[in-house]
């Protein structure tokens, strides 16, 4: 057991990788066990992640060195430099890792029946596992070049998954192409920023870069490149256009994972602005940039959602608008980072709200996309105009949809309300106008989900859907698990905030802790 714990950071990344390479072999022998094989592997990964979480939350950050026993290399002259690839997992990293593990496990379970009729399943599962690997890598790595590699792994895997259903129509391929272009731009800009760092400081380790950061003109350029492209990958307005395309055309289970993948980019944005730069940058300017991106995302996202006719495009626009809340909460924290009094009185709270919202959003938006997938599975359409009266046939799906919609609209006692309340109250102390916009957006969110609920579920039973049945058990299980998480988080938000969110926020704010863990170990 302790052996597993020691190697857990590597195992979490390596188990899905091994399984991804084994899926073609397993699929060659038996197609039926393939889904179960992948589900078991991802379940195991979830278990190891949970073990690691308990370890990190009790004993502090974990460092894992690849390919050697020490991270550093000491030259004969006595100069020591951290040269190996390391995984550096602190509160924030494991927080995101838990989201990834839960979401990818449930996506595998959901796919058991959702993807049953498709051919080429071994490729689908291999790509799903690769996507999980890429996301874990992005969240755990302590090396900025390694971050680029995992970013590319995640985006290539997600592009292939978005375009997976292009044998019938051209739209998935189009969405995949668009996502590929924007994610290539983002990855190459990240690579260029890596070059800027390496050229100045001759190191690639993020903690070491943070400790020697001078904030020169070149560092400013690197910050701008990273800030823009990572905000784009997170889907913030006005660089959000790829989001509805990609989310609506991907299979429903993959859309849920894609939400988590874009949050991994959001995590990287926070990691870079807090751990890498921290107060050496002009926090007020950068904080306000993030806040304005957040406000734009919230408002434009939700207003565009109201007029959508395609159920998954509508939800994708909501994903943009909810990302705005996270950007707003954390942006307020960044804007007051240099001011200890304000940070203490509301900055930390605002960040807690923003970070807590990341987890809540992954859960309820995942649930909503899964219900949309369930509707698509039974009716064969995503067009809301063609749906109606489905509550008569699909009882569980209806209940789960109500839970998810109530959570996203911020209706108590579900989890969305808890995190939104924290954001409203703490942001109000920073700037009342921002808080009022956030509340308005929440009302519009409720309005648009009332529209979805009315047009898809309510009304008389339509002639063409008389024979529609409830979805298979594995899909119900995945949705039920997410619904349980939503309700539990909603009823006991203090437990989550105290044990998971607060350590994550503190690990972002305390830059010295972040650098000291690495530099002590060289």
């Amino acid at each position: 057991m302790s052996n597993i714990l020691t190697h857990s950071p590597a195992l979490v990344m390596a188990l899905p990788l091994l399984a991804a390479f084994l899926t073609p072999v397993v699929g060659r022998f038996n197609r039926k066990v393939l889904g179960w094989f992948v589900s078991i592997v991802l379940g195991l990964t979830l278990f190891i992640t949970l073990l690691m979480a308990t370890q990190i939350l009790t004993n502090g950050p974990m460092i894992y060195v690849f390919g050697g026993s020490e991270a550093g290399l000491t030259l004969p002259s006595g100069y020591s430099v951290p040269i190996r690839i390391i995984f550096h997992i602190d509160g924030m990293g494991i927080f995101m890792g838990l989201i990834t593990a839960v979401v990818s496990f449930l996506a595998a379970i959901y796919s058991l029946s959702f993807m049953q009729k498709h051919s080429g399943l071994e490729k689908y599962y291999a790509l799903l596992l690769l996507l999980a690997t890429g996301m874990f890598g992005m969240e755990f790595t302590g090396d900025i070049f390694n971050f680029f590699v995992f970013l590319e792994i995640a985006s290539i895997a997600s592009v292939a998954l978005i375009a997976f259903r292009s044998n019938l129509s051209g739209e998935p391929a189009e969405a995949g192409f668009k996502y590929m272009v924007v994610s290539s731009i983002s990855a190459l800009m990240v690579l260029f920023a890596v070059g800027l760092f390496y050229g100045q400081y001759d190191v690639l380790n993020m903690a070491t870069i943070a400790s020697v950061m001078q904030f020169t003109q070149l560092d400013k350029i690197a910050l701008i490149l990273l800030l823009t492209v990572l905000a784009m990958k997170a889907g913030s307005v006005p660089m959000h256009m790829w989001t509805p395309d990609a989310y609506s055309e991907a299979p429903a289970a993959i859309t849920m994972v894609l939400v988590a993948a874009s949050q991994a980019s959001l995590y990287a944005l926070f990691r870079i602005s807090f751990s890498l730069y921290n107060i050496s940058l002009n926090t007020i300017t950068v904080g306000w940039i993030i806040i304005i991106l957040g406000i734009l995302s919230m408002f434009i996202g939700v207003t565009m959602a109201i007029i959508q006719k395609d159920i998954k495009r509508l939800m994708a626009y909501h994903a943009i608008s909810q990302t705005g809340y996270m950007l707003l909460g954390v942006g307020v924290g960044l804007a007051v980072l240099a001011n200890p009094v304000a940070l203490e009185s509301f900055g930390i709270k605002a960040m807690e709200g923003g970070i807590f919202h990341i987890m809540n959003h992954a859960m309820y938006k995942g649930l909503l996309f899964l219900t949309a997938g369930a509707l698509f599975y039974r009716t064969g359409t995503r067009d809301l105009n063609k749906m109606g009266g489905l509550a008569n046939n699909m009882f569980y799906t209806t209940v789960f949809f109500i839970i998810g919609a109530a959570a996203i609209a911020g209706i108590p006692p579900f989890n969305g309300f808890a995190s939104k309340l924290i954001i409203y109250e703490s942001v109000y102390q920073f700037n009342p106008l921002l808080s009022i916009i956030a509340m308005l957006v929440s009302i519009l969110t409720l309005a648009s989900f009332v529209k979805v609920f009315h047009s898809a579920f309510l009304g008389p039973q339509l002639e063409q859907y008389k024979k529609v049945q409830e979805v298979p058990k594995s899909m119900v299980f995945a949705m039920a698990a997410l619904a349980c998480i939503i309700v539990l988080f909603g009823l006991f938000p203090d437990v989550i905030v105290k044990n998971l969110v607060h350590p994550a926020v503190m690990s972002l704010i305390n830059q010295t802790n972040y650098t000291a863990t690495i530099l002590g170990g060289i």
Partner: protein
Amino acid sequence: MVGLLETGSGYWNAIIWVIMVIIIGIAILWLRSHGEEKYKKDTDQTKPFLSGNPEVSKEDSHVSASHIYWGFTEAMKNYYHPLIKLHTGNINDYSGWIVLVMAIIFIIVGVS
């Protein structure tokens, strides 16, 4: 206390809220049980009265998605028209927006 969340300038407890909802719900049900008793099922009482016009069949009366919030979108036409125009779906514009935002942030951060 379990479930008590500090929210910056106040507190929130979902469990108390649930208990309150249950209590109020029971109260409403109790009030309801004291209501009018003249109501009879399956009589003309239950039918809607549409100025004497015959009732539309239930299948036809379903309002489809594009007609919901028609008034809202009509009132916000000046807002929505340019917004929809921006969402061209053209990949060149996607890249263009990224470069544009990058340039704007460049100017803001560079000046400050």
